[in-house]
């Protein structure tokens, strides 16, 4: 009996090895750029009356996460503006990026939702699966990358030009750094920003780079040190990361991770902080300067109106600063440098008019070289092969070919880990 079991197990292992060896046959398909692929055409949204419209929101975490809270508040605002009841706006929090997302979507469909929205990057494949199962229901997803190539007409992705908001937040940070230098509090070589990122992929890298470019737009001596927590929401890790950065000499902290860990650590140590998603002034009245955020309310209104009027939802939508999708929260004048608000208004106007480009390749270098060409992985078909040219006319055209960020250069000169 034992021998038999051993023999079977050995056979299985052998098979496994053979299978692994054979795996991943490289087909010689040509890598298609985003301009060459066949793009999904969005289906018409089934028109419903105001009483019948129902939207379901799937969140990875709950209100304690600044990221998820931003969606929840935006949806509640849209609900209030459109005059919908609580029964028409359902919210599920704490939905993991696995089968739980599919289940949540199915339950929402059973509850009568016409539109379902999920907020986390990892929800995407489950949303596509749900969209295939229920072609009459519209599925929308924030930060997703696959809608244009999914071929599923009722699946949509959305994001915004948040890199412009990050740039503005960076300007506020740069003003503060310059003030510290000018007042003799620090010397120019000590103008080090600490940045806490969740994961080292495009969304985070793009955010930190645009933030840094904003800071350096004002304070040319600024440099930045990055550290990762490998989690979207981990209060202890984010706090520890902030304290480590502060102890290693960083004089200003910003983060792309969703808990109160970093802002509170900054308040404890008296180090200025620039945040993301929500205003953190209540967490750090003496240190929080400003936050950049995506305002999702117009998007929610747009997709609900699409159901009310029977229009279509764009397959891949990128909200602009001009249309109010990218915002800064209230400036904490008690902490910010003098003249920050005026500078922000000035830079914002320049960004909207196009006079100023965040990723103007003349303003930064990579390994000492100017960036003249860069292929980004915009067609996300799971191959992780860069496929499309992103530098056009001297600008890295972030979020123009796909709403989800694809600036993933680690790092431009001045940023280090």
């Amino acid at each position: 009996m034992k021998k038999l079991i051993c023999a079977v197990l050995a056979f299985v292992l052998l098979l496994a090895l053979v299978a692994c060896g054979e795996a991943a046959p490289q087909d010689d398909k040509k890598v298609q750029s985003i301009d060459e692929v066949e793009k999904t055409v969005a289906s018409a949204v089934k028109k419903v009356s105001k009483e019948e419209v129902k939207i379901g929101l799937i969140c990875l975490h709950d209100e304690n996460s600044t990221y998820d809270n931003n969606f929840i508040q935006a949806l509640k605002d849209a609900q209030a503006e459109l005059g919908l009841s609580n029964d028409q706006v359902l919210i599920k929090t704490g939905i993991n990026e696995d089968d739980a997302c599919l289940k949540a979507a199915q339950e929402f469909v059973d509850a009568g939702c016409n539109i379902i929205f999920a907020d986390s990057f990892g929800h995407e494949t489950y949303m596509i699966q749900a969209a295939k199962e229920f072609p009459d229901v519209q599925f929308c997803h924030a930060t997703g990358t696959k809608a244009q190539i999914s071929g599923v007409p009722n699946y949509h992705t959305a994001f915004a030009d948040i890199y412009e908001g990050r740039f503005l937040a960076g300007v506020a940070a740069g003003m503060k750094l310059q003030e510290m230098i000018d007042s003799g509090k620090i010397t120019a070589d000590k103008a080090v920003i600490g940045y806490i990122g969740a994961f080292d992929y495009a969304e985070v890298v793009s955010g930190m780079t645009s933030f840094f470019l904003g800071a350096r737009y004002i304070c040319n001596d600024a440099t930045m040190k990055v550290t990762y927590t490998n989690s979207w929401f981990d209060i202890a890790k984010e706090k520890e990361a902030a304290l480590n950065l502060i102890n290693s000499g960083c004089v200003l902290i910003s983060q792309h991770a969703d808990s109160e860990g970093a802002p509170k650590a900054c308040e404890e140590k008296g180090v200025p902080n620039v945040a993301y998603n929500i205003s953190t002034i209540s967490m750090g009245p003496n240190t929080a300067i400003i936050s950049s955020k995506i305002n999702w309310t117009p998007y929610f209104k747009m997709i609900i109106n699409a159901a009310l009027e029977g229009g279509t939802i764009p397959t891949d939508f990128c909200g602009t600063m001009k249309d109010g999708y990218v915002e800064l929260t209230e400036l904490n004048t008690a902490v910010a440098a003098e003249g920050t608000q005026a500078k922000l208004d000035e830079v914002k106007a320049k960004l909207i008019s196009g006079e100023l480009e965040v990723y103007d390749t003349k303003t930064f270098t990579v390994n000492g070289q100017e960036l003249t060409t860069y292929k980004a992985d915009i067609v996300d078909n799971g191959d992780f092969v860069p496929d499309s040219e992103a530098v056009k006319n001297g600008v890295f055209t972030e979020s123009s070919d796909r709403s989800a960020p694809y600036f993933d250069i680690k790092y431009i000169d001045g940023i280090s880990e």
Partner: protein
Amino acid sequence: MNRTEKHQREPLIHITRRADIPLAKAWLIRLAAIVSALIVCSLLIVAITNYNPIEVFVKMAEGSLGSPRKLMFLLQELSMLLCISVAVTPAFKMKFWNLGAEGQVLVGGLASAACMFYAKDSIPNALLIFLMLAAGIASGMIWALIPAVFKSVWGTNESLFTLMMNYVAMQLVAFFIMVWVPNGSNVMGIINMNSQNGWLPDLFGQKYLINIIIVFILTVVMFIYLKYSKQGYEISVVGGSQNTARYIGIDVKKVIIRTMLISGAICGLAGFLLVSGTNHTISKELAGGMGFTAIMVSWLAKFNPLLMIVTSFLIVFLQRGAGEIATAFRLNTSVADIITGIIIFFIIGCEFFINYKINFRTSKERREAKQ
């Protein structure tokens, strides 16, 4: 003189172990516990949310049982928790504190996912599923074998050892996802989405039915194994006293290792079912704390696999209900968690009153104490 006086003084309350309790009385105590838990929860709901507690409880039940689909979700989650509870049971019965079910499930799932990821659609579905099953079970066994060998040969502390193995498993999963998905937020996404290769098929149009059937068969088999087989008896003896076991000629080392291998194998199976039959992906949250909840399920059922169907139902019912009321009343999920926490607290607490009797000082004793 003084000393003897003190000696005579009886405490106001003393606790004795109940020799035996009539079954009806035991269930009466349990019922009383649930009722009082619901009363406390109602007070809490009124105090912090101002909703009608009856409405909240009805919604809670609806969330678990309200539609055929919800019932299926409940059964699927129940079967996964039950599977892991059945897995930890033989070890716990042997008084081997296996806190590593979480990690054993994770490596089982990881091995299954690896087969799925590398094979893609190069081999037939049936063969791939068989491979994934074998790889999952084998990995779960290895993960359980390591602490078992250390315990039986060098006498290391198994609770700490198995607990730490969980973290190793988690990091392994994170590492492999990073290898497989180089640019991302450590999320794998659905594997073989288009070919559906390596996915357990639907049965009668129900996605989770195979999972559920496998686990229920397994539960019955485990019940028979523990109660009627020679090996099951050996487990009880080793759990009772290792010296007795040695005295009657049981090879304790062998029993420990064999039992842990069974435990690990079932955890590995759970990992396989979670990957192949449920999520079609792998993540650090695959076991989602079930490896620890399973301990409570197993313990509450007094290590009886058939009773675990009831206890795991209770836990999953509460969890799903909690999620439902969070959505229906726009409560933070923590409120829902508090409610389930209170109910579970009362249920665990009532076992104390079933096993122990509280004796108050009688008036006669009180008089004696005064003298």
